[in-house]
């Protein structure tokens, strides 16, 4: 089932005014190593943000890295993951977290319920978790959270180790601080300090490269 949703105010404040959810239940197909819903239906090439999810009845090492796979399981699932990769879909599941536990206790638990986000949607993805109470089914309820991304990158900071100290030393020695105003007020002394401090700190800025922004940079 595909659901096209219209978002008149923009999808998470973006310029896109809609998104698509494709929910599918894929069972065994007519031939061996096939499923009832083919990969090109589940993973369409769409201009809208697309969320593909459902019980695809496939096992793949990308979703379940600790499982021992049979050859036909790999053969069945590979076309789906290849198609997702070709179109830039990202798997949202937390790898290795089982979504299905067999009631009969015969079959192994597995990662059958998969969720994928297309490149337009993946920046908004925040969390995949299973905190909800059991529905008494052999499948666990899953919570997917999407949020507006935090666009503001941390500001770069100076890399003092790479400062051009030789040139900076000369510039600092040549810097002259002007005397304060003769009868200053609180604000004129403040202005005098900020102007003269700027004379020194602007020399730092001229001779110092900035550090690359990393995950650990302050916001």
């Amino acid at each position, binding site marked *: 089932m595909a659901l096209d949703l219209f978002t008149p105010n923009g999808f998470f404040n973006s310029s896109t005014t809609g998104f698509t959810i494709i929910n599918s239940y894929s069972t065994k197909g007519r031939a061996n190593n096939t499923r009832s819903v083919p990969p090109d239906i589940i993973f369409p090439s769409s201009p809208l943000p697309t969320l593909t999810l459902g019980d695809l009845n496939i096992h793949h090492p990308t979703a379940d890295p*600790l499982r021992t796979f049979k050859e036909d399981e790999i053969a069945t699932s590979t076309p789906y993951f290849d198609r997702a990769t070709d179109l830039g879909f990202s798997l949202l599941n*937390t*790898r*290795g*977290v089982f979504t299905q536990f067999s009631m009969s206790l015969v079959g192994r638990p597995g990662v059958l319920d998969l969720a994928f986000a297309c490149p337009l949607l993946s920046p908004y993805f925040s969390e995949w978790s299973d905190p909800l109470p059991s529905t008494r089914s052999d499948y666990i309820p899953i919570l997917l959270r999407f949020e507006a991304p*935090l666009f*503001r990158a941390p500001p770069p*900071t*100076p890399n*003092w*180790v790479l*400062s051009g*100290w030789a040139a900076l*030393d000369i510039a*600092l*020695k040549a*810097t002259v*601080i002007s*005397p*304060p105003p003769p*009868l*200053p*007020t*609180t*604000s004129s*002394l*403040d202005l*005098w*300090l*900020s102007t*003269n*401090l700027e004379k*020194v*700190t602007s020399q*730092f800025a001229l001779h110092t490269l900035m550090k690359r922004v990393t995950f650990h940079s*302050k*916001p």
Partner: protein
Amino acid sequence: MLRKAYNSALRSSKPDRFDASLLASARAARSAYFKAIKKAKRAHWSSFLASATPQTVWTAKRFAVRRPPPRFPDLPGASTPPELNNALLDHFFPGEPAGFTDTILLPFRECLPLPPDEISRALARSSPSSAPGPDAIPNSVWKRVHRVAPHLIHDLLAPLVTYGSHPLTLKRADGIVLDKPGKPSYDSPSSFRVIVLLQTFSKILERIMNSRLSGVARATGLLNPHQCGSLAGLSASDAVTTLTHEVKTLQMAWRKVSTLFLDIKGGFANVNPSTLCGMLRAKGVNPYLVSLTRSFLSGRSCRLLYQGSPKVFAPVSVGAAQGSPVSPLLFVIYVSRLYSEIPQGLTLSYVDDFGLTASSASYRGNIQILQRQYARLKARGARLGVSF
């Protein structure tokens, strides 16, 4: 072996942080050391996975799942970034900031000159790795600036000391908002805390203030002899030694001894500039130091930093600024009024922790003495705006 090499290289690079060859060798040693740790960890992880059992596979899963991302403030009543920022500011800095008044400044004639070696001493006490505030300039850079061009810092700071003014430019701080781990929900400002980062240049002036004021405070009796902490030569161990000595002396006289430990709520935020400056003036502290103190305590602004913050400076009322070298001393002077003599007992403090010791023939008697002393202390605290 690798750690020894790393520490040795680090030590040899420390005297001159800007020597490129020493830094390169220190970096290579560090890289080798941490790479070896990484390799050992990877090998251990592989062997752990290879020998995983049905019991340990869940442990492996716990290790493999990514760390939860840092939480950001998301308060129910605040729907826009400015509203969120104001809600956090109101929580972290609840006091009403005083309005700014532009006044004419006159030079204090009795002000002591600021020699370059006093600035050197202030810089020597500052940590090179201390996180800088909005100026993003670490102490190590100011140390180098002072070594290369000693006139610069002197010419910038000397007029401030002469006029007894701590300008607004130096009183801007960054407040890093961090989530408190393990909270059940993060929809309240109380689930977050703030770390305030002050400008390193301002801290040079504050260290000079601290060294001058601490000398005056000892000489003029601004501090009680039983106050410890924030003062050179009066550490926590001095407080403990005094307390144990007093208790043992009283016990030797066959008396029962009891101590009540108290903590001041809020601490530095309670310092009232007018009250503190009145105390300084009453003890004859040089007027330029009183003026610097008043200026230091007022007109502060803070910019809260968290993902999505509007990054604007807002005026805040903080009392004695958290993280400043002079704040602990100002606080200790401020609370010195809480002291009172306890007959056959002791009032002792370490910064904002107070201990009331009483002795009598029975523990019941001690309880009564301590209850009376606590009531007196509470009344004095109320006059200063502090509570326990």
